């Protein structure tokens, strides 16, 4: 009962703050709204018994990535963004595209009933750190190591790009 309410609450927060993110004129508010969304999503993860992911999510997204965003916005001093005027037909097109996509996605989702009906929860604690760690270090060792190389590359790239002399 409680979890059900928690689900609805988290969902509401996530969607509301996501909307706030895209509609807010001030980018700083946008970032903050997004952080709120991420917290809500982390909450979902908890509900789904994926504690490890929930933790990582908060650390990485809310803690690192969004702070980076915030930092950049602050540094560039983009308090108020000049929004360009959009032509009406562009707006119309965007609305149509978004609406259509929503419609199609919902239609597709509606069909998942038939698929998930046969599934059953076999191992409810698969999201625990221990289990996840086993899978990660046994089956996905190579991608895991590759991820570290990716990070290295990203790091080098970021540093290189941000060097003043390039400008």
């Amino acid at each position, binding site marked *: 009962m409680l979890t059900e309410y928690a689900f609805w609450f988290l969902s509401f927060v996530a969607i509301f703050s996501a909307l706030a993110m895209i509609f807010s004129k001030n980018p700083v508010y946008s970032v903050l709204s997004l952080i709120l969304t991420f917290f809500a999503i982390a909450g979902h993860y908890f509900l789904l018994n994926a504690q490890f992911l929930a933790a990582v999510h908060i650390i990485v997204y809310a803690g690192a990535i969004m702070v980076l965003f915030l930092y950049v916005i602050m540094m560039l001093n983009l308090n108020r963004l000049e929004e360009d005027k959009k032509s009406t037909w562009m707006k119309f*097109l965007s609305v149509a*595209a978004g609406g*259509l*996509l929503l419609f*199609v996605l919902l*239609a*597709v989702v509606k*069909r998942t009933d038939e698929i998930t009906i046969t599934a059953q929860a076999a191992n409810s604690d698969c999201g625990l750190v221990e289990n996840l760690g086993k899978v990660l270090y046994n089956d996905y060792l190579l991608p895991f190591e590759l991820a570290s190389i990716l990070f290295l590359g990203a790091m080098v790239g970021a540093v290189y790009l941000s060097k003043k002399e390039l400008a």
Partner: protein
Amino acid sequence: MEKLVSLIPVFPLVGFLYIIFLGKGLSKNTIGAIGSGAIFLAFITSILVFTTQLHGANPTIVKVIDWITTPKFDIDISFIVDPLSTIYLLFITGVGFLIHVYSIGYMHEDEGFNRFIAYLNLFVFFMLILVLGDSYAMMFVGWEGVGVCSFMLIGFWYKDMANNDAAKKAFIINRIGDLGLILGMCMIFFHTGTLRYDDLFISESAASGLHGWDLHLAAIFLFIGAMGKSAQIPLHTWLPDAMAGPTPVSALIHAATMVTAGIYMVARSSAIFSASDVASDVVMWAGILTAILGATIALTQNDIKKVLAYSTVSQLGLMFTALGMGAYSIAVFHVITHAFFKALLFLGSGSVIHAMGGEQDIRRMGGLKSHLPITHITFLIGTIAISGIPPLAGFFSKDQIIAVAFEENMIMFVLASVVSALTAFYMFRLYFLTFRGSFRGTHEQEHHLHESPKVMTIPLIVLAVLSIFGGFMGFPHAVGHAMHVPHWLDHFLENTVEMEVLDMSVGTESILMILATVIALISMYIAYTKYMKNGELALEDDEITSSTHQTLASKYYIDELYEKIIRRPVDAIAQFARNVVEPKIIDELVKQVSLIPSGLGSVAKAAQNGKLVMYVLAMIAGLIILLSTLI
């Protein structure tokens, strides 16, 4: 003995190669000796080969090397020895030899002497291939080869563009005929699977595989080939122009040998032609029309060689008339006698031109009798022979053509007689204007007049002798039978060509002979009264007086007609194709097609405008389409 036949073409070929490649430092006499010596050797060998055929030996095929080999079509370079080919051999090498000798004198002063003798040798080589080849394909080799030699010799004096034009015209019109011959060969091959005479006519008769319109069409195509080579209507226009070449060339190629290749070919294909009445009629009518056309035009020409040229056209027409009526051996007979007297006449005219210093207009001649005695006598013999006055060669052959016409077709008989009468008239006109009366040229020319050297007159004399006695090889049937003189040529060719058996009484034949003689004599008399009695040049020969005369003198405007309806339209079409069709239509079309991708490209380019939103929209559109398949 038959094996020797493969040597015969080798002599002139070697002569040609030797003179072209090694003849640079040699004197003109040596070159002349080599050139005519080669032909003489060929002549001797021909006689040896000929003797094997005298008593009815079977045709022999002598293979030299493989030539074109495909799974089905297989042609060797090989020669056929049979009466028809050997008799052609004899007069080609014989007359050829005489003309070579004559050329030594005639061309002595020319800077291209070596070249001339070499070309003549090459020509004889190809002519021999033509008659010796054992298949249509081999004949075609010679056929085209003589065409090229003719091209080179007509345009011998190549610095004069008129000569080159004449040479080109001859070659191209010949080529039209050759196309006909190729198509004929194609049809024969398609229906019988072979082009060898052996398979077609001799050991098997594959030619009977042709039926109905295939047969007619094949025969007509072959005849188109003959039209080109033997200058029959409508492909006759090149022959008079071909007189641009040196006179020995006119004698050898354009009177005695090459132009009779068409007769050879039709005679060789007699099995096909005699089976096709349609084609035979075509041959006959084309022949007689050509004969009349040539004879009428010859009446008004003033160039000594042009008169002879049209006379040749006319005589060839008569031969084809004979062929069309099925009298193959008689046509061949006339070919041989014609070779003698026409070569004689041409060489005689050459001697005259030589003496006149290049003048060819008979209006500027006259009274040459005393200056050129040998030439005069021999030319007179030639004239009598061609006019058909007994007992010279022309009488026998022409009379038999007329006799056959009498049997076969009265219209042909009348027309052939008219031609015969015209022939006698224009030949005597030529004779009188040239040799009798008083000299009409310039004083300088008169001073220059001289008889030709021996090297030129001896061939004239030999040919004159042949023109006198050559006719006896084919004594008229009925009369000959009564007098126990066999028709030797008919017997000789009996197994080679289809025979027309004349069923004619001695009386009828004698009457016809007398009639022909009388006609010739009357024409001669008319010519005499017109050109001799007054002792002056007739008015209408100096200027053109009537429209008929104008038409004849302009050769029925046929050249002009061809110019208008063929040459100019073709040129115009070619120019049109070059200037309009090619750049404006085809290339334009290609350009338009090539614009399609670049047009599409510019559309796609508009989408790639760098606006992120557009890309996103495109992605979403794609996503929607993709997902909608899942619904």
